[in-house]
């Protein structure tokens, strides 16, 4: 005969506002096996938890039901509370009276009735609870960081500096990410490369960091503490052990292609490092464009017609003989205990905006393109010129929210950084050429950040940028000028400006492949393909999957300081995990009752985690669950024909007890 204690939380007025607590308590008293009922203003508060603790002891309760917020919010909190009263923490059941009841239904009888039913449901389930005991498993104190942008770099360095080994995977030939492409950073106007490069070098030289560039994560198996990761290393065709990065090859390579790093406004060679400060400072051969690899493909495919030249200049000139045509793509496997995902963002492609020319007008550029035009190491060595005719623009117009706050483009969110980088551009353009006049069309100036507002003011008061409140409707070419049509919504009058250069402040979108990677890792992502944190406020760098952490703009629009902070935060979380020598496993796993198992091993087929082993007893072979691998999905339970498998915490008996509690 169980002795269940029922505790109803008012959550201030969040629950008590629409649910009649007194009625719920009355009803609870009548429920089978309920030995004690009580309510708290805030059960999760210290006094709240204390009163629950005391009640358990005083009334010798052996099961606890708490009617409060969602179990996804406070299940762990209350398990600790229960444990502190000397009761097994898994003898707790939570009735979700807030998210599933008081917050979504009006003030009225039916809301209270539902609350009562949810409590009865919980009581019935709890009646069938049994004490559960976690097991301990070992963990590999080695981390994987995916993405070598500023967030990933920061995470890798912090983890490495706290004494753990890190494998840093970057799909480009160099780390550095978007930040490396920026000229200056707001609001301090630091040179982006100057503050980033030292960190990149540290990564390259850190004894605890294994840097895998030109590589992508392909497959992830295992679980917290014991992940196994398959990484595809694309063939560099250059042996980085012997290569000294002298640069002869990329200076002499005759094949020129548009440079991704320069947003295709400059060129690179087929054997290349993406930019001067690249880490590693050693080249890769882009096999799609290299003349010799083209030749090899040509021969291999036995095509007709004129053969491409067998260039091989790089090979001939390389002083250390580092060129290695034999090198192939290869897949390597790494064992790690935890993973930080920092795959960042890319900028929105504005070609969908027909009214802005849809890419037809060369002198309509994106913010990132302007960064490269302004950068001393950029394609124009920092000389800001019009792509069309190389003239120096005097009138520059900015269009805000391109690919942001625009449902038409399926992008309803604010990209957060554009307001500030437009201000930065206005200030920088004035520094480059005092004759430049900037006009910035904005909807709202979003300058919430340390020194941001001051910076935005500076763009107007010192750089003399004219801010016009309104979204640009159309841009068209008129001779050498671009006519920009907007409204000054403060005057309520249409505005037309004849511009030399128009800059589209394109927003942030998740990197290509973000969703695919999320699936590989079994973490969730939202409708925009941004990754979802475990709790948007309280667990901002964790995911719902233990041992996998997030950092930077892959979660949503972020600026540099936020990305750095999150990189460090993720590292700290990971270090906390690694500070333990063993991990406590969740006991809510499947368990096979050997007596009932017929040994059909259907469970083994369906288990997504290979968590079913076979056990040979003296008489026969039966299935047995590896509790380290089992994640408790219950797939095998529902598929087991003999009903021999039970899922702890979600057994048939317990779930059906919930059903039978309804509408009594």
């Amino acid at each position: 005969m169980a002795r269940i204690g029922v505790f109803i939380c008012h959550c201030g007025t969040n629950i008590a506002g629409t649910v009649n607590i007194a009625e719920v308590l009355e009803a609870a008293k009548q429920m089978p096996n309920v030995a004690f009922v009580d309510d708290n203003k805030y059960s999760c508060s210290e006094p709240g938890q204390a009163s629950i603790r005391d009640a358990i002891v005083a009334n010798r309760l052996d099961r606890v039901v708490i009617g409060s917020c969602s179990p996804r919010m406070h299940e762990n909190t209350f398990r600790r509370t229960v444990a502190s009263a000397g009761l097994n923490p898994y003898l707790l059941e939570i009735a979700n009276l807030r998210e599933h009841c008081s917050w979504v239904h009006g003030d009225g009888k039916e809301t209270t009735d539902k609350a009562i039913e949810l409590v009865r449901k919980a009581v019935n389930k709890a009646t069938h609870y049994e004490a559960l005991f976690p097991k301990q498993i070992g963990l590999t104190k080695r981390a994987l960081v995916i993405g070598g942008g500023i967030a990933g770099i920061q995470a890798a360095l912090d983890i490495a500096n706290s004494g753990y080994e890190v494998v840093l995977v970057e799909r480009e030939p160099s780390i550095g990410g978007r930040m490396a492409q920026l000229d200056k950073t707001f609001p301090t106007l630091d040179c982006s490369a100057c503050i980033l490069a030292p960190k990149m070098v540290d990564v390259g030289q850190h004894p605890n960091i294994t840097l895998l560039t030109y590589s992508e994560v392909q497959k992830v198996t295992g679980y917290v503490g014991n992940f196994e990761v398959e990484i595809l290393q694309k063939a560099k065709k250059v042996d980085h052990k012997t290569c000294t990065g002298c640069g002869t090859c990329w200076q002499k390579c005759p094949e020129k292609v548009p440079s991704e790093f320069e947003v295709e406004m400059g060129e690179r060679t087929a054997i290349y490092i993406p930019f001067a400060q690249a880490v590693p400072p050693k080249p890769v051969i882009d096999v799609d464009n290299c003349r010799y690899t083209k030749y090899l493909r040509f021969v291999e495919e036995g095509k007709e017609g004129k053969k491409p030249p067998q260039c091989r200049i790089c090979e001939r000139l390389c002083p250390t003989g580092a060129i290695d045509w034999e090198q192939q793509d290869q897949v390597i496997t790494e064992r790690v205990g935890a993973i930080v995902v920092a795959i960042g963002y890319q900028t929105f492609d504005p070609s969908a905006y027909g009214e802005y020319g849809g890419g037809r007008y060369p002198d309509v550029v994106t913010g990132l393109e302007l960064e490269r035009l302004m950068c001393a190491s950029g394609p124009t060595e920092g000389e800001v010129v019009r792509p069309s005719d190389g003239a120096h623009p005097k009138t520059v117009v900015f269009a805000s929210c391109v690919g942001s706050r625009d449902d038409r483009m399926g992008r309803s969110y604010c990209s957060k950084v554009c307001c500030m980088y437009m201000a930065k551009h206005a200030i920088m353009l004035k520094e480059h050429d005092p004759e430049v006049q900037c006009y910035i069309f904005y909807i709202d100036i979003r300058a919430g950040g340390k020194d941001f507002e001051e910076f935005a003011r500076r763009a107007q008061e010192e750089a003399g940028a004219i801010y016009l409140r309104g979204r640009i409707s159309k841009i068209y070419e008129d001779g050498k000028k671009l006519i920009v049509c907007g409204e000054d919504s403060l005057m309520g009058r249409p505005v037309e400006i004849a511009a030399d250069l128009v800059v589209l402040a394109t927003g942030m979108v998740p990197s290509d492949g973000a969703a695919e990677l999320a699936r590989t890792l079994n973490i969730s992502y939202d409708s925009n393909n941004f990754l979802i944190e475990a709790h948007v406020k309280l667990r901002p760098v964790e995911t719902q999957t233990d041992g996998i952490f997030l950092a930077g703009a892959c979660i949503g629009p972020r600026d540099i300081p936020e990305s750095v902070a999150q990189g460090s935060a993720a590292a700290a979380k990971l270090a906390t995990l690694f500070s333990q020598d063993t991990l406590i496993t969740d006991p809510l796993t499947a368990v096979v009752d050997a007596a009932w198992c017929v040994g059909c091993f259907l469970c083994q087929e369906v288990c997504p985690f290979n968590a079913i082993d076979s056990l040979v007893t003296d008489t026969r072979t039966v299935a047995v669950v590896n509790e380290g691998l089992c994640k408790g999905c219950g797939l095998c339970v529902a598929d087991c024909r003999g009903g021999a498998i039970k899922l702890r915490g979600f057994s048939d008996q317990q779930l059906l007890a919930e059903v039978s509690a309804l509408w009594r």
Partner: protein
Amino acid sequence: MTIASVITPSPISELRTSVEKRSGQNILECYQCGKCSAGCPTAYAMDLTPRQLMRGIQLGLKDEVLGSTTIWLCLSCQICSARCPRQIDIARVLESLRILAIAEKSKPAEKDVLLFHRIFLGLIPRYGRAHELSLGVLYNLLSKHFLANVALLPKMLTKGKLTILPPRVKGASEVKKLFAKVRAVEKQ
């Protein structure tokens, strides 16, 4: 007491609800970016830009909205709707406002435009088809702009661009019935 020109917003106005009902658009979705007004070919001639008109509806300023030149100078060119980042069919909203203004018998700020529509529609049940000459003549008489476009007449006539006699089609009688039925339905 409040001063006349001071706005007293009425967030839940009968104006907004009826416009939303007629147009099927959610007026509160407008975040006032002004892209509509920036692209509107006649915004320069309006007393309220389309954006201000949307604002007027949000605040429930019935007289300002129904009394604006905006609703009559709208050319239904659809640019506003095509480019609206909130995907509001603004042209549809203005259409609803015109119809509402007529229903409310509120004094049109551009009375000639309404007159033109009235004459145009007046002729169709008679002839079944539009007839420019009758349209022009009637308009000039009723609007008292006796000389509007008269300068063009001789050339139009010599070029044979204007048919003197109105068209005669059997369909006319059917169209007359059609008009009557529509009016009847709309009465209910």
